[in-house]
């Protein structure tokens, strides 16, 4: 225990209260979307939030928060993250800020990716944060092993797993659950994203990517099910333009779902505090 305290005193993460990883075995299920919306929702409940984007080959968060043109600066204790709002309540670090041209491909093998992730975890001056949300690329490989290893001394609150309802996606998330078990990472719960689409013309709900897969997986694996987020064109539109969905569309279908998930996250964080 003593050793852990010593380590966390040293790092830039020492005044970060809760670290939450967002994981999925499958790509394109909405990891970055969930990370972004959770950050916005936490901000609206008065928390200070940081987002660390460790998806090195396909960083999406800068655009989703309309921060793609900003730059990272240096200070004595390392890199200064980019603040996405005037109040400086959401800070963000992503490889997107380090590329000369936005279309540059990061053609790196594992060891180089691992080195940058270590830097991202140790050398970003986050300052005082209630939550640090770590958004990851799909899979169970270099980025994930390095992130979990480097974060271990800081005792992360756990991982949120995102899936879409269809069996093909649930299959990959089952493997991600095994990854969490093997690396000793606590599972906060599973979110089923893109769960049903309500036609804006006739209000008919179509399960484009099937339904219920995430909930069933949570029951099967005996981990909490945090909720279903429906497909919502207003949500994709907000993300495309980097706008605050939580503030602008409180009446939309996805809003109550995201809010509900945020409340559960806050409760679990409360338990870690006490």
């Amino acid at each position, binding site marked *: 225990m003593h050793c852990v305290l010593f380590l966390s005193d040293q790092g830039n993460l020492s005044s970060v209260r809760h670290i939450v990883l967002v994981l999925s*075995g*499958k*790509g*394109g*299920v909405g990891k*970055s979307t969930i990370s972004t919306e959770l950050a916005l929702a936490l901000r609206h409940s008065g928390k200070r939030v940081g987002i660390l984007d460790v998806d*090195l*080959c*396909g960083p*999406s968060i800068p*655009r989703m928060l309309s921060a793609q043109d900003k730059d990272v600066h240096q200070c004595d204790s390392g890199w200064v993250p980019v603040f996405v709002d005037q109040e400086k309540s959401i800070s963000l670090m992503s490889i997107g800020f380090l590329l000369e041209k*936005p*279309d*540059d*491909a990061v*053609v*790196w*093998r*594992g*060891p*180089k*990716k691992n*080195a940058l992730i270590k830097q991202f975890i140790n050398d970003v001056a986050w300052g005082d944060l209630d939550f640090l949300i770590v958004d990851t*690329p*799909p*899979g*169970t*490989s*270099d980025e994930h*092993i390095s992130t979990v290893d480097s974060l271990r001394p800081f005792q992360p609150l756990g991982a949120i797993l995102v899936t*879409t309802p*269809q*069996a*093909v996606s649930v*299959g*990959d998330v*089952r*493997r*991600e*659950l*095994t990854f969490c078990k093997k*690396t000793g990472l606590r599972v906060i719960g599973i979110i089923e994203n893109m769960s049903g*689409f309500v*036609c*804006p*013309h*006739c209000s*008919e709900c*179509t*399960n*484009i*990517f*099937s339904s219920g897969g995430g909930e069933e997986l949570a029951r099967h694996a005996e981990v909490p099910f945090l909720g279903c987020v429906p*497909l919502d*064109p207003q949500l*994709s*539109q907000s*993300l*495309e*333009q980097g706008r605050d969905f939580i503030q602008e569309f409180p009446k939309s279908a996805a809003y109550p779902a995201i809010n509900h998930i945020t409340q559960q996250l806050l409760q679990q964080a409360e338990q870690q505090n006490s």
Partner: protein
Amino acid sequence: MADVPENAPGNCPGSNSSEAGKGSACQGCPNQSLCASGAGSAASDPAIERIKEKMMSVKHKILILSGKGGVGKSTFSAHLAHGLAEDETKQVALLDVDICGPSIPKMMGLEGEQVHQSGSGWSPVYVEDNLGVMSVGFLLSSPDDAVIWRGPKKNGMIKQFLRDVDWGDLDYLIVDTPPGTSDEHLSVVQYLSAAHIDGAVIITTPQEVSLQDVRKEINFCRKVKLPIIGVVENMSGFICPKCKNESQIFPPTTGGAEKMCHDLKVPLLGKVPLDPRIGKSCDNGTSFLSEVPDSPSATAYRNIIQRIQEHCDMLLRENYQKQ
């Protein structure tokens, strides 16, 4: 640095330099041990030569790529394989190099199948007489098994898939890849460098969040000199089965794939609309093309498959003329 192979990872110190095989960029490169031993550029990984021989009996090799995950690479790969194999005179194989998230076994209805060993290597698992499949999924003992591997181990697996699988004589080898521009992609391109790849089909969805990753993938192809056959826009609009009105679930706020293809001067092969029955076919391991042959999405798939076929035939003719 003349001794940097053109398909080398970024920051390659060059195979003749004193740093060869020792730099941080060298870790995980298939040539690392050779470079470190001072063999220099003349000798590359002997596997590349072996793979070239193996691939002599494969007429066309097509990679399915996308910078973004979950846009439908595996769905498209599976249906391209099904579509090409409908012609019983053609031999088709599908190789899944997504080591951490293999979806192909489920989509082809082969979950739980195992690979058999024969004298000439691993035998692929066959869906039809003329359609063979290989995936890391066939090597796992349970669907919960996670493949928690770093790059070098993944590269070793891909090398084995290309070198040690008894593919036989093939008309088409389709390679389905994971998202990104990293180990798996570099390895496939490197190992197949001597064998000649027909080209890459790049899959995207219409929204900018996806396109920005796909532009990176196009730049990757240009960097490693991989020809691009064209781009497919997937999940392009959704027609409500009840009221038949179209909704843009993933809105093309920046002009979609059409504008990107125009800007980057790559061909657009077609657009496939969202259809809930596609996902269902994939979950059940059946071919959407034969389940719902008259749907707009099936027609879109068929047109795209035909364009790919024409492209491959054209390359073949050009090669004959050169000889």
